[in-house]
């Protein structure tokens, strides 16, 4: 199995486009996943009886085979990027929801009580005390969800999308390994870079975690 470097040289534009498209699909899924998880996690955190239900639903959604999700979505959103993103978003929920709930649980009761006793109203406490303190745990979830989404985008090749995944079908159909290898390497690279970027983002967002006394 040798890499045909001239093929890669001839296809840099296509590889760039596919990489960006791949990244866009994955990041959109994580973005919408966070957007959905935050309010649901607040509900799961505050309303104990709903907690098991919401986490259970996110678990069940995760077990639906990806092809089945795409098929189910076809009548709704067709063979589009939207279908890809919805499918991937559903999968991110299992990690994002759980980690956000756990992050909120991890905020010390003493700190919340102090906020209340200082005269902070509940919404402001949530936004300025609970979310910031839950951030490390939430970010751990975001990192897993991001890497997971980056590896899952390829599945959407079934519906004509799939970013770098298209290189795999291309390579298999022509029995030509170079695009497959390029696709795998770029996917891994993307995952590593995205994860590093999130670590950096977390560093910037949590200054109080930096210098340990």
């Amino acid at each position, binding site marked *: 199995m040798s890499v045909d470097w001239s093929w890669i040289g001839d296809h840099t534009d296509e590889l760039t486009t596919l990489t960006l498209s791949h990244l866009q699909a994955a990041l959109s899924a994580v973005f919408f996943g966070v957007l959905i998880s935050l309010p649901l996690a607040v509900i799961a955190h505050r309303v104990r009886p709903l907690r098991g239900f919401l986490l259970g639903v996110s678990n069940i959604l995760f077990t639906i085979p990806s092809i089945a999700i795409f098929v189910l979505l076809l009548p709704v959103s067709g063979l589009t990027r939207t279908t890809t993103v919805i499918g991937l978003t559903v999968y991110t929920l299992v990690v994002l929801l759980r980690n956000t709930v756990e992050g909120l649980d991890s905020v010390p009761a003493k700190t919340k009580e102090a906020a*209340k*006793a200082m*005269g902070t109203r509940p919404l402001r406490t949530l936004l300025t005390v609970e979310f910031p303190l839950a951030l490390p745990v939430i970010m751990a979830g975001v990192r897993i969800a991001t890497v997971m989404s980056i590896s899952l985008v390829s599945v959407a090749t079934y519906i004509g999308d799939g970013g770098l995944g298209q290189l795999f079908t291309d390579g298999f159909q022509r029995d030509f390994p170079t695009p497959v290898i390029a696709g795998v390497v770029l996917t891994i690279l993307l995952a590593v870079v995205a994860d590093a970027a999130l670590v950096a983002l977390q560093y910037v967002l949590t200054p*109080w975690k930096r210098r340990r*006394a």
Partner: protein
Amino acid sequence: MIQFDAVHKRFPNGTTAVHDLSLEMPEGGVTVLVGSSGCGKTTTLRMINRMVEPTSGTIKVGGQDVTRQDAAELRRSIGYVIQQSGLFPHRTVLDNIATVPLLLGHGRRKARARAAELLETVGLAADAGKRYPHQLSGGQQQRVGVARALAADPPVLLMDEPFGAVDPVVRTQLQDELLRLQKELAKTIVFVTHDIDEAVRLGDRIAVFRTGGHLVQCASPTELLARPADDFVADFLGAERGLKLLSLTTLADVPQGPAPEGGTWSLVLDAANRPVHWASKDTEIPVRPLTDNDSLLSALNESIASPAGLIARVDAAGVLTGVSSRDDIHTHAGQAHTEARVAA
């Protein structure tokens, strides 16, 4: 002034935390609530800023019924210090202190300037402001907690076992600091503790609670120690309550005479007439001189430790003014006791 009128608190699980409490906490004074755990003292404190709502009865702060005010606004007007400081771990010390001024809409710059001012008030260095709470020692965190409670200059300060988690040495420092601050600020302070010595040191009034939320006695420290209302209070004050009472009286009125000459022990002074040690023919024993502001308890302790049975007394500069004997101190201690009992 804070007034409790027939206040009752029963929790949903059926336990009565506070039983028919009527109590006045005087303006500009420190009222200490003491009692063993589960006696309702913390619940009492938390009803003042509505962290707990009373089941019945009324609580007034400055003449206004607390339940008729918006809870969040009420809390902003009352300083609150809790055990282990309860600081926000994700905010710098300065931003922690600025919490309430920011909630009141004072603007970031003004709130931070006020916070920097308070750092000094509570005895912290200016560069502590940029740090995060976990970078400070327990005692420093507690000082920040006090500064945060004072930031909006509230007339009332609630302190829930604020010094419970620090070591005894730091605890004493923080108590001294609080007394110094209180002399300047004259806040109406409600202070919860289970440590009777802390209560005696800090309180203008001490309210003793018994399990089940019953207030047993509320009195000045002297009155409480001299005349406990019943056996429960007496037990709570401990076997050494007579000695505790001595900690409330100063040495000022004990007569003093010139230092003895020619005895077994003589008091050796330095060039500036400051006592250094007691000396006999072959031994030197260090001396701890006392000023008029020291307590009779310290004097008694020192007189027992002194080989000559005398305490060396000095002025503010440390210069010897005279000595007092064990007998003088004993006699005076006995008088102080009797007077306290009669006055109470």
